[in-house]
């Protein structure tokens, strides 16, 4: 068995942690806990970025790590907590599929993501190339979460988690995106959360609930 250097072991365990957190979010039904899990995911992502920045000596990764920390660990969770308090949503209703079923689907997706990432892994030259499969899995799991939830807040959490996955994927494949793109995405996410927050209030005002099945009544009837 080959001996991996320490930073490689650290990176791999961070990646594993991210995947684990994704599964945790997939199974978690309490909204507050979901936000906390998201914050932890952000923290792990920031740590990974920091590690990479130190290892590769690329300065812009320091900025990216700081940005992730500020935005995804502090600002967004704070905003979301506030939103949840004011909207009085704590629990999501029963998901569309029971939790164990979702976990099984999630497993299949992870296998799919890993087999998909194999050719890319062979091509990439980064230290983190083995994590590409995980990044893809995180994205797809977040997508799955969006599909299976009924409450608007949980769907936004899925959306944000997906963005984490995308960022992580970019990091593993090519040490992050250009700075300007990263800044743009960060701003996008921030704006998305703010706009969606406004939407939540509007939806609740209209339907007295944040359950999205009420939106079905907007469909054109024949």
């Amino acid at each position: 068995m080959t001996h991996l250097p320490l930073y490689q072991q650290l990176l791999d365990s961070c990646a594993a942690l991210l995947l684990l957190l994704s599964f945790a979010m997939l199974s978690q039904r309490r909204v507050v806990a979901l936000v906390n899990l998201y914050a932890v995911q952000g923290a792990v992502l920031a740590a990974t970025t920091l590690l990479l920045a130190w290892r590769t000596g690329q300065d812009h990764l320091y900025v990216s790590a700081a940005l992730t920390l500020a935005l995804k660990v502090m600002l967004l969770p704070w905003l979301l907590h506030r939103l949840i308090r004011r909207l009085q949503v704590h629990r999501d209703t029963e998901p569309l599929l029971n939790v164990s079923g979702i976990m099984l689907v999630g497993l299949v997706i992870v296998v799919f993501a890993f087999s998909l990432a194999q050719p890319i892994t062979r091509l990439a030259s980064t230290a983190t190339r083995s994590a590409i499969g995980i990044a893809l899995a995180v994205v797809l799991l977040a997508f799955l979460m969006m599909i299976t939830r009924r409450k608007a807040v949980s769907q936004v959490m899925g959306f944000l988690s997906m963005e984490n996955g995308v960022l992580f994927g970019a990091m593993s494949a090519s040490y992050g995106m250009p700075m300007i793109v990263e800044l743009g995405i960060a701003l996008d996410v921030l704006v998305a959360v703010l706009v969606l927050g406004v939407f939540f209030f509007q939806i609740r005002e209209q339907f007295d609930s944040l359950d999205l099945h009420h939106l079905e009544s907007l469909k054109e009837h024949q």
Partner: protein
Amino acid sequence: MHRLLHPVAASFPMLLIGCVGLLLGWTVIGLAGLVRPRSVVLAGRLLFPLGALLGLALALLAGASLLGGGIERLILPIGLPSLPMHLRLDPLSSIFLLLLGASSFGISLFAGGYFRVGEGTAPGLLCLQYHLFLAAMGLVLIADDAYSFLVAWEVMALASYFLVTTQHRIAEIRRAGFIYLLMAHVGAICLLLCFGVLQGGSWHFTFHAMRSAHLSLGWATVAFALALLGFGAKAGLVPLHVWLPEAHPAAPSPVSALMSGVMLKTAVYGMLRVGLDLLGRPVWWWGLAPLILGLFTIVYGVLFAAVQTDMKRLLAYSSVENIGMVFTGIGLTIVFAGSGLKVFAALALLATLYHCLNHAFMKSLLFLGTGSVLHATGERNLGRLGGLIHRMPWVAWLTLIGTLAIAGLPPLNGFVSEWLLLQSFLFTGHLPHAFVNLLIPMAMALVVLGAALAGYVMVKFYGVIFLGQPREAALARAHDCGWLERIGLTWLAVGCVALGLFPLQVIRALGAVTHQLVGAVVPQSSSHWWLLAPVPERSVSYAPLVFLTATLAVVLMTVLAVRLAYRQRERRGPAWDCGAGNLTARMQDTAEGFGQPIRHLFQPFFQIERELPEPTDRAPRYRVVVRERIWRLMYEPISGAVEGLANIAARLQQGRISVYLLYSFLTLLVLLAVALIR
């Protein structure tokens, strides 16, 4: 004559630049209407007459170009980056520009007096739509690349759509507008595909490139079929005519006149341009399609015209019939040209073009006449009109000229073109194809039937509206039209008479067009300026002036003879009372009654709904509505199929966010899996 046979390309496109300037002028006039959109005085007394003058100038320019016989080209640096706007003025464009300018002069003058406040769209806005419509039609005629052509074509369709739905507050009119827009788009899609085929893999969309593209027979046939569908939908070829009888009654009368008189002709122009110019020498059997459809359209249109009770709907069906005549002529031209019989092709083309010119004048005149009647009485229903010749003498007498012309009576213009068409039919025996040269001459009988029934229709149209006694008391308050309207009507009527009396001069001018399209001019065997004898082998000739003089002389002599023989013993009494003395309006023949024999004879064509009065009814009214079977046989299955497909597609739309997310998730997975496999 020498210049005519050898067209010289002018070095500086002076006439073309003039035409472009006039089209821009129309646009500016239209925009000026927006300065004070509610002002009738600005739009009606200033802008519309100004637009009419531009129309006259356009007609003069086009006439000069036609007589010169040259071709002018111009490339304007606007449009797509790689495809600037190509313009071209050749004899074919010129004759249709002449038609546009000359008939729009009369129509615009009339429109100046016609539009009033409180009729749906504000006058200023109408002025914009109307002049954009005119400018777009002009651009269609001079466009020399597919892109400009289609842009102009669509502007034309949209502007006319808004004009049709002037009274957009009435649901029925909105529906008529929708049908029109739908058919216009179906046609436009066919044209788009047609031009796509015509470029022949060169990916150059100028008409010049299309002329030099070498298409295989199969693709050329596809292009021809698409052109026939696309232009046929605009022209109103059965079974694509359904929008005509809906849109014409809905539109204000000057708009109906413009659409029927001019816009339908742009479709004819397009058909000639594609069929005889862009496709090069046509294959003879292509011509059978427009020929057969045209013949069917003639009979179909005239039968439905005969049973209508709404005067504008009647005229719309009459337009369908005339378009049938024109397409029959196009079909004959292509059959002859494809068989190498150039002179006969020139004769058939001549008949086609002549009929287009005639129809532009006479149908505009009739539609404007109905507009005046509509304004004076507020009635479109023939069953509530009558006796208007006493109340509206100007309209009645000028409309009479149009009625006689469209009925095909000499010495007016309708006779000339129908006579030419029949003459060219007589030569189909020379075709080198067995059976076809037997069958086509027989099909001529249908043209004759159409022409005869058109006379019947016009007797009904004129007789019921203007003659006899007023069927309603309110008709006594009807008033004649204003002076602008009178000038417009007179211009069109004079056009009808002039085209009828001087056919030789018109045919000479059209020589450049036939030379351009089929490479031959119709020879003139006679050297007399008043005698039309287009076919040297046959001793057929027609001298309208002689006919007119003789007719006038006979009438004059009869009047004189009666005056002399019955001096001092004449009495004036009510007409047709047969001495009985108390003739009432209800004793007259009605529109329904007049059409009854046709309805009876051709029953399988119609879908008839009758409304019979109760026996105890004090004022019984018999009403009959005739619908087209084509709606049930063709359009309802199509719309049903479309709706069925739409409903199947609608099942995808669950309205649930989870399902939509699932769609994108699955799409993503499938795409990734495909990437994985490859």
